């Protein structure tokens, strides 16, 4: 299988601070890759380099063999961490804008996705909550027929129910054979979808492995992440609702579903506490 992303000896500095220190890796096409690491480790800088937002770096970066430029950008759909939509826009303006700029954008699918998300096409972006904006941006990204989807914290700042919906949308709308590079702190929520994990710490790659080889010994990806970063795993705090016996650990979707059925009040409390 060919490599969708090839990075060699990538360096990026902000002033005297070097955030990427000679990063090298190659990622196979058609996979879902988790880009994992603590805040400030260089994840977002790397995604910005891959999408053509940062230009002053040293090293070689190729997307499907193309250096970063017009050809590489044609292959990439990017979901940034922050909204790029002008505040005056309504959801339908955002869809029309993206439809006008990207030939591979499916306008009808985007409007259908808005309905699925319970978003009004006439609602202004500035009046939307963070979660609603996140869903709109996700619709704009996933309605493109791209070869590579790059997502920066797609589950950041949204409640568990929305996280589940976003995760399902990502998986169900991914074109066959396309690759995804997802940067996230919500390892627990996404570890069951990752084929490959790329971990970065202080600008250096500390793990670049298929997820099956990490979880082969029975540990979870989150446990592996904590081990690599020297973070102790915490036991659930008393007073928080816990999933009923039998719910599979490590699968947020199943846990939430089981909790909703067994204890609707606890489920409501959990959602409310997450929203606060």
């Amino acid at each position, binding site marked *: 299988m060919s490599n969708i992303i090839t990075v060699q000896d990538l360096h990026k500095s902000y002033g005297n601070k070097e955030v990427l220190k000679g990063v090298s890796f190659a990622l196979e096409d058609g996979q879902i890759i988790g880009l994992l690491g603590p805040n400030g480790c260089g994840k977002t800088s790397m995604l*910005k380099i891959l999408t*053509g937002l*940062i230009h002053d770096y040293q090293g070689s970066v190729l997307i499907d063999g193309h250096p970063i430029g017009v050809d590489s950008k*044609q292959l990439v759909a990017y979901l940034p961490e922050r909204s*790029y939509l002008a505040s005056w826009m309504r959801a339908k303006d955002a869809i029309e*804008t993206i439809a006008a*700029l*990207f030939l591979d954008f499916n306008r009808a699918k985007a409007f259908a996705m808005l309905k699925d998300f319970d978003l009004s096409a006439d609602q202004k972006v500035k009046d939307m909550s963070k979660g609603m904006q996140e869903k709109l941006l996700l619709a704009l990204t996933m309605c493109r027929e791209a070869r590579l989807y790059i997502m920066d914290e797609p589950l950041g700042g949204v409640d568990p129910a929305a996280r589940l919906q976003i995760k399902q949308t990502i998986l169900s709308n991914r074109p066959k054979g396309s690759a995804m590079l997802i940067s996230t702190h919500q390892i627990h929520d996404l570890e069951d979808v990752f084929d490959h994990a790329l971990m970065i710490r202080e600008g250096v790659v500390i793990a670049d492995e298929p997820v099956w080889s990490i979880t082969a010994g029975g540990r979870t990806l989150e446990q592996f992440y904590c081990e690599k970063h020297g973070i102790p795993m915490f036991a659930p705090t008393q007073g928080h609702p816990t999933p009923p016996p039998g719910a599979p650990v490590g699968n947020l979707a199943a846990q939430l579903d089981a909790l909703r059925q067994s204890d609707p009040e606890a489920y409501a409390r959990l959602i409310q506490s997450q929203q606060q």
Partner: protein
Amino acid sequence: MFRLIKNEIKSTAHSMTGIYLATGIAIAVMALTIQGMHFHILPNWVAALGLIISMVAGLLLFLLTMIVVLVNFSKSLYGAEGYLSFALPVSGGRLLGTKTIVSVIWMFSSYILSLLIEIGIMVYTTQTLATGEVMDLIKQILPMFVNMPNPSVLILAGVFMGLSFFLTLFMIVADVFFATTAANTRPFQKNARLWTILLSAAVLIPTMWISTRLTNDVPLTFMLTAKQVGFIPEAMSVPNQLSTYLPQGPGDWGIKFGVVGILFELPLSALLLYFTSYMMNHKTNVK
């Protein structure tokens, strides 16, 4: 490119509509107050105030357009909207070209509209308030236009003035785009707004000084008279000596245009845009 231009016009039209609407309201207020005074409903000072507001609105229209266009450039490339702009599958040069074309179109439209507003105010107030003395004055002025050159020369002079203004606008746009982009490269990015102003002034002030000196001192100007047009080897600073270069009849009218400054500004603007495009492709960071 056409799709990019269309989208750029659409996205900037949102801000521009507000400016044009505000100007339209100011003019409507002026018309109402003058009518109110004409029919003795409103006191004179209210009409005077309405007149001043609409004249100021006409002048502000151009200034605000310039600010909106330049702020939009910065926001759409180096603000949050830059996440979309730089992810588009187009080259930096094409992105820059689109923004330059649309910016110059808006600025030129607002300039023409400003001019039309000021002329319109003059005509409207004269017609509405024309007393016997005003009409007498107009009758006295009209014969002076008899000695004006033929209409085709006047049109040519208008086109030349419009073109030189257009090129100066182009240079200002190129200068600010260059400064904004340079301010978003690593050495300046921490204080990007301050550096935009400083770098813009650092390029614009010497450019304007050199351009003015070249226009005034280099002995090459474009001459328009009622009968002829052509280049003459005379500097702008030298008083008009039409008869030396171009044959003319008694009472002929002539005007000189400096061209060397414009000839200097045009390649400089192109050079600034070239460097801007280079920085967009190789040096800038979107925060």
